[in-house]
């Protein structure tokens, strides 16, 4: 029996050489490899995926950076009469706009982060490290706010936090001695509370994983030594979790820098103008052509801040192994017995779920059946109707927006899944130097550091500038490409999946003579299908709820439901709420499919 023919470029190294072992290729790549030994199927795929990704990200960002140094501010960077200048930065600094925006962003981000981390860490600890009853159910309910489209979520929180008639305030005044409030939607504390609670699910997801993987031996030793639960948490648990806590905080800060929906609905009244809202106000101006140069200048500052945070995050996570508790020697993750604290813990969890999940959904359902929201059961009884749903379903613009949403979401989900999964596979199977892999990982994660308003503006100005050669501006394709900026999220989820699959299976396939494409199709894809399915559905849900991109980049023919809902919010809040309720139903179905796939993978 002869050994299978392999190409020299992909031949396994001779025994004892210690070199990297290459997976031989087959089919079309064999012929190509004969003439160009360095071309392999994997390298072609890698080059294709990363080049596509860079083309998606780099030109728009480069246009933004270029536009920041072009004037006058109301000209596109390559328009007749445009010239190089520092006037845009001068204008935003001297007017005090940059200072005020940076200050407001810092308040907004730090405040929201404090709220999200406080609740998120506590909930994650209770669910993962104690014997809290109904822990699995609480874990699912914590994610309920994700069902609500973000712009509608902002509407719901405004209705909850109205000082006199907010539903949450009315309930609080049943037990607290206040005549008004105590919370106020149009204040900084109200805004950060709403935003912070909206991000608790992400903190629970990340910190839950950290708690789950932590060896409880150290905590047990501490308690056996007589240290209280609180003391153990403070002196042992929290210290071991420092990298995870810092990493989660930084990642949260990156996302919060670009947050836009709650500041848009609350911000004017609260007197706060974070970056996303500032950019929106500059672009949506009544008096003249938008000051592109100044918007670009603000965008570059936002990107610099976000990337600074990302670099800090990566640095911290690279040192995380010093805090490793899970080793090859095995570990235990025993749960703390809450004992007499079980009931209070259950009550606190129940209270959290009530405030963060049940009340927002309730108020949306309520608003969707009355023309104006007033927390009065009698008025609800007298005026409740399904008119808002009927009017929506009879409105051709609603169906056009729904059609746009489906097409854009499907397109973006396909792009991010294919691109993200391919890049993840390349990185997971990379056999070169560690620095090379880190570089590829950094490039693939780049888009995580680009705040949504910046991504939207960058593509907006790029498409406008290049409209004569790339006529994408004003089309659905523009939105598909803009939504695909979030490929970094798909990449990270897919990477986690690929790392769990041994490369031996692919090597065995290749040794049998299968090419890269055949191996991917017949070996890897069936194994990765649940993960790829999860990535696709997550991409679909994210795209369906996207708001900050289409509000800048869309036009009347391409507006998705999120923008259409925002347009109805002022005059027809019942219709906006009805859209939120219908949207929740769709997301619930998709989330169910996601969970089904995730469970199938686990089995």
């Amino acid at each position, binding site marked *: 029996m002869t050994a299978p023919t392999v190409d020299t470029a992909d031949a396994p190294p001779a025994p004892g050489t210690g070199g990297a072992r290459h997976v031989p290729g087959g089919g079309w790549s064999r012929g190509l490899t004969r003439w160009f030994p360095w071309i392999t199927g994997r390298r072609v795929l890698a080059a294709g995926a990363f080049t596509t990704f860079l083309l998606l990200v780099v030109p728009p960002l480069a246009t933004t950076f270029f536009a920041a140094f072009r004037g006058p501010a109301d000209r596109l960077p390559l328009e007749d009469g445009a010239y190089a200048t520092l006037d845009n930065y001068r204008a935003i600094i001297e007017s005090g706009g940059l200072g*005020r925006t940076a200050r407001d962003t810092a308040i907004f981000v730090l405040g929201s982060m404090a709220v999200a981390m406080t609740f998120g860490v506590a909930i994650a600890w209770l669910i993962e490290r104690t014997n809290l009853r109904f822990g699995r159910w609480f874990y699912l309910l914590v994610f309920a706010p994700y069902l609500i489209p973000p712009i509608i979520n902002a509407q719901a929180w*405004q209705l909850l936090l*109205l*000082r*006199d*008639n907010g539903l949450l305030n009315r309930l609080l005044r049943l037990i607290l001695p206040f005549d*008004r409030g105590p919370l106020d939607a*149009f204040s900084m504390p109200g805004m950060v509370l709403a935003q912070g609670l909206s991000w608790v699910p992400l903190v629970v997801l990340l910190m839950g994983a950290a708690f789950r993987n932590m060896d409880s031996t150290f905590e047990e030793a501490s308690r056996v030594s007589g240290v209280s639960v609180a003391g153990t948490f403070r002196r042992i648990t929290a210290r071991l979790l420092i990298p995870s806590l810092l990493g989660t905080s930084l990642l949260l800060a990156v996302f919060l820098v670009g947050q836009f929906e709650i500041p848009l*609905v609350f911000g*004017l*009244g609260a*007197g706060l*103008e974070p970056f996303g809202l500032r950019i929106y106000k500059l672009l*949506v*101006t*009544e*008096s*003249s*052509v*938008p000051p592109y140069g100044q918007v670009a200048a603000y965008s570059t500052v936002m990107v610099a801040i976000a990337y600074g945070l990302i670099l800090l995050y990566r640095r911290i996570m690279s040192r995380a192994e010093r805090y490793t508790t899970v080793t090859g020697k095995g570990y235990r993750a025993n749960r703390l017995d809450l004992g007499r604290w079980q009931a209070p813990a259950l009550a606190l969890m129940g209270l959290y779920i009530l405030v963060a999940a049940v009340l927002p959904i309730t108020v949306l359902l309520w608003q969707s059946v009355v*023309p*104006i*929201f*007033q927390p009065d059961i009698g008025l609800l009884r007298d*005026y409740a109707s399904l008119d808002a749903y009927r009017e929506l379903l009879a409105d051709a*613009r609603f169906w056009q927006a729904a059609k746009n949403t489906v097409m854009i979401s499907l397109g973006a989900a396909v792009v991010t899944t294919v691109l993200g999964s391919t890049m993840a596979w390349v990185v997971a199977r990379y056999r070169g130097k560690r620095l090379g892999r880190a570089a590829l990982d950094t490039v693939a994660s780049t888009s995580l550091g680009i705040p949504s308003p910046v991504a939207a503006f960058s593509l907006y100005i790029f498409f*406008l500038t290049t*409209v*004569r050669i790339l*006529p994408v*501006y*004003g089309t659905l394709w523009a939105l598909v490409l803009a939504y695909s900026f979030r490929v970094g999220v798909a990449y990270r989820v897919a990477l986690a999946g690929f790392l769990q699959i041994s490369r031996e299976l692919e090597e065995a396939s290749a040794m049998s003579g299968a090419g890269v494409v055949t191996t991917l199709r017949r070996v890897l894809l069936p194994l990765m299908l649940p993960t790829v399915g999860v990535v696709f559905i997550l991409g679909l849900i994210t795209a369906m709820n996207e708001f900050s991109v289409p*509000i800048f980049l869309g*036009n*009347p*023919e391409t*507006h998705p439901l999120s*923008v*259409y809902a*925002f*347009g*109805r*919010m*002022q*005059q*027809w*809040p019942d219709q906006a709420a009805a859209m939120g309720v219908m949207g929740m139903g769709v997301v619930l179905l998709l989330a169910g499919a996601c969970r089904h796939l995730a469970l199938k993978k686990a089995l």
Partner: protein
Amino acid sequence: MRQLKRKYGAVVVLTVLMLVAAACGGGDDDDASPGATTQTDPNAAMTAAMDKLYKDALAAGEKEVSVAYVPLQSYMLEWKPLFEKRFPGLTLTPRDFGTNSAWGSLVLQELNAGRRSVDTGITSALVYKPLVDAGLVENVDWAALGAPKDRVDAPIPGLLINHDIACGVTIYDSRKVKAADLPTDPQGWLDPKWRNQMVMEPFNGFACMAWYGLKVGEDKALALGKAMKEQNGLLVADSAENLLASGERSVIPFHATRGLALKDKGVPVEAKFLPGTGGVARQGFAVIKGTPSPNATRLFALWSITDEAQNVSDKTLGGAYSFIGASRPNSALRQEIVKQGLNPDDPAIFTYETSANWVARSDLATRLRVALVG
């Protein structure tokens, strides 16, 4: 005699048959006539001009008029079948720009990108400004087309006034506030009884406040705004009308009569004009240069000021967006003003937006907004 009867009888029968054929027959587009309408046009000259424009549009092969609007002007969707019924062969295509009421710059970008955009849109001089500055608005002589004089005295050349927005109105929750409680002078808003009761919209509120500023000076208007905010907790929010309707706040000062639309939702609100703050902003249609349907666009703009169209838009938002001019004495807004004992034609009470003052007012509105909310 018998021969005469036969001769004239034949003529009568033939005439009747021809009339019946003309009424029932479709014919081709070149022979199409405007559909019947039960509403009257402002005058015969305008009717004749519309007929000519219609024939010219069909002869030139014009098929479509694309019109920009925002959700508050959703009567555009009711106009569509009426316009298409009266002028068969022409299609009205409304384009809803959603929350982007400043669609002028978006249209400019579309045109600069070489894409078909809108032929016209219903909005103010301020939104048309980027197009005017770019030389993209036709200076149509609407008066020569029969439009009434008070429809053509517009802030920018070429704008045919469709409706007015009357500022200087206080919208109040009649469950909590009586008309007699309201101040008779804007400085009255500094009375402690209005503490935490007031809410204003950020764009429309300061646009209306600017009329007051034009009368008393920017410094005084700014001082009042600051005091209302800092002393009396004036809240500035896009959802001002919803906050009033929900009972969260009880008055919207410096508003427009649009707030009366809340009555349609069963909310007990009333409006009262506050002396010294009245102003009339004008919105209308202008023809954008380069439109492939110049005749049809002019025709649509003229048709929009007929009773047939105006009776529909008058019903929207409680009549808030309707024409105040004397050429339409029965408009909802004019009647509302008269009901409050005011003379809509008195320049001492209402300052009308003209080419002489619209830029100053817009700029002042922007400065007030930036100073008070950023």
